[in-house]
């Protein structure tokens, strides 16, 4: 770590993470990453009529991992599922005023967590439809 410096915004989202915690009645939950690599992100989504109305996260990982997952929860609320799926890892990183190169994989992980949670939502609703 270090050898780089986080932007003030990364530090803010790390120190004061928005939307941290569990969503008991989540409609979709996605967990990605590997504790062996030092990062695990779990994203909880509440979805109504195809729109994300609430989001929470839990993350085991470095400051960048915590900040990106927090940021992604902020970015998705109010969007439709298809809009949410358009959020790229770069957009997450940019919303945090950038990430150090060695930490860009955290934003990838955040994007993946979002996709996984949405997939989980689809699976569950498929299950319910059947």
């Amino acid at each position, binding site marked *: 770590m270090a050898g780089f410096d986080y932007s003030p915004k990364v530090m803010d989202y790390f120190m004061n993470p928005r939307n941290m915690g569990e969503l008991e009645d989540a409609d979709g939950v996605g967990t990605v990453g590997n*504790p*062996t690599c030092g990062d695990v992100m779990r994203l909880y989504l509440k979805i109504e009529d195809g729109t994300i109305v609430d989001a929470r996260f839990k993350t085991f990982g470095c400051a960048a991992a915590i900040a990106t997952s927090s940021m992604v929860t902020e970015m998705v609320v109010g969007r439709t599922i298809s809009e949410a799926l358009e959020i790229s890892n770069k957009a997450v990183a940019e919303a945090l005023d950038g990430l150090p190169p060695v930490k860009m994989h955290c934003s990838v992980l955040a994007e993946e967590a979002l996709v996984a949670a949405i997939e989980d939502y689809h699976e569950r609703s498929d299950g319910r439809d059947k």
Partner: protein
Amino acid sequence: MSVYLDHNATTPVREEVLETMLPYLRTFFGNPSSVHSVGRQVRQAIEEARATVASGLGVRARDIYFTSGGTEANVMVLMGATGTKQAEQRRRIVISSVEHPSVLHSAKELEKRGFEVISLPVDERGVVSLDHARQAIDDRTLLVSVMLANNETGVIQPVAEISSMARAHGAWMHSDLVQALGKIPVDVKGLGLDMATVSSHKIYGPKAVGAVYVRGGIRLRPLLYGGHQEHRVRPGTENPAGIIGFARAMELVLSDMDQGVMDRVEELRDMLEQEILKRIPHIRINGGGASRVPNTLNVTFGFVEGEGLALMLDAQAIAVSTGSACSSGTLEPSHVLIAMGMPHELAHGSIRFSLGRMNTSEEIMETAQKVARVVEQLRSMSPLYEDFTKSGMDFGSYLVKVGSDDEKSAMEE
């Protein structure tokens, strides 16, 4: 002011040390190689510093060469030994798996250049295996390099024992004394060393100065070429202020030790360990079962990641490290903890507290409280902790499970 608990990364320069340096930054500015007295007086001060450093290590002044730090000293030994006549016959280098990156990466480079490198494993306490050493060190061995104290865990290695194995086979014995000096007594002769490394900024001296001891008779191939400085073993215009400060720091740190400063530091370290154990569940003290230097405490906090922990503590004015500062800048967990058999997940959650002469018991209590609070906060964020609490497992069985997960994922690679 923050509570500084990262003395293994670096120490502040003592005011007494800075005072001996300043004249060599202001008044006595000559080039020690110059023929005139402006230079000669600086040469003389350097030679006095050399005598001081040598006597601190119990060796002859002419066997001490000043370097730009511990890294250069270690690389000089590994690269230098492999450039000698002896290296034509002896193609094996034996190191430990918990050496500083300057030794590890030099050895890796030597492997590329055709040497056989054997890296001795450590047990789960972090102690180098003497059995493995006995097997590895043979008549084809050129150099054995095992550090006296590890920078991350503080664990003290059986250097004297390994050194007699090296001697029995005619191999050279080197030890990186950087983290031992000033913390435990260091007796170069008693340890049977042919070469040794020390660094100034770990003992309250200035940064970017160090020294290598090379027993008379051994002629390493130099790393640098140029003028006649340091008997051509280490050319380049010297760092008089740095060298003089280093020597003074060495005198002071050794006299401090005589006066029991390290005993007090040890009490504080043990207090920190107890307070953390008392307050925080699901943790492990790394190297706790071995003898350690008195100032170092390395703790793994289950379910949290070290960088986040260190940064949260930093925001609360507690400075600690997640491992060796030098291997930071990477995403790899500590090679030392991995060598001790710790699963990657847990290695990621380790913090090194390294105390110094100025720490107080108030600071220690404050640290223990803040660590407990921050660990709790990060665990509340951790999906791993959520899963653990829901599973109803105890931490012991969790460790076993994580360990076997880790082996599986290693096998998949």
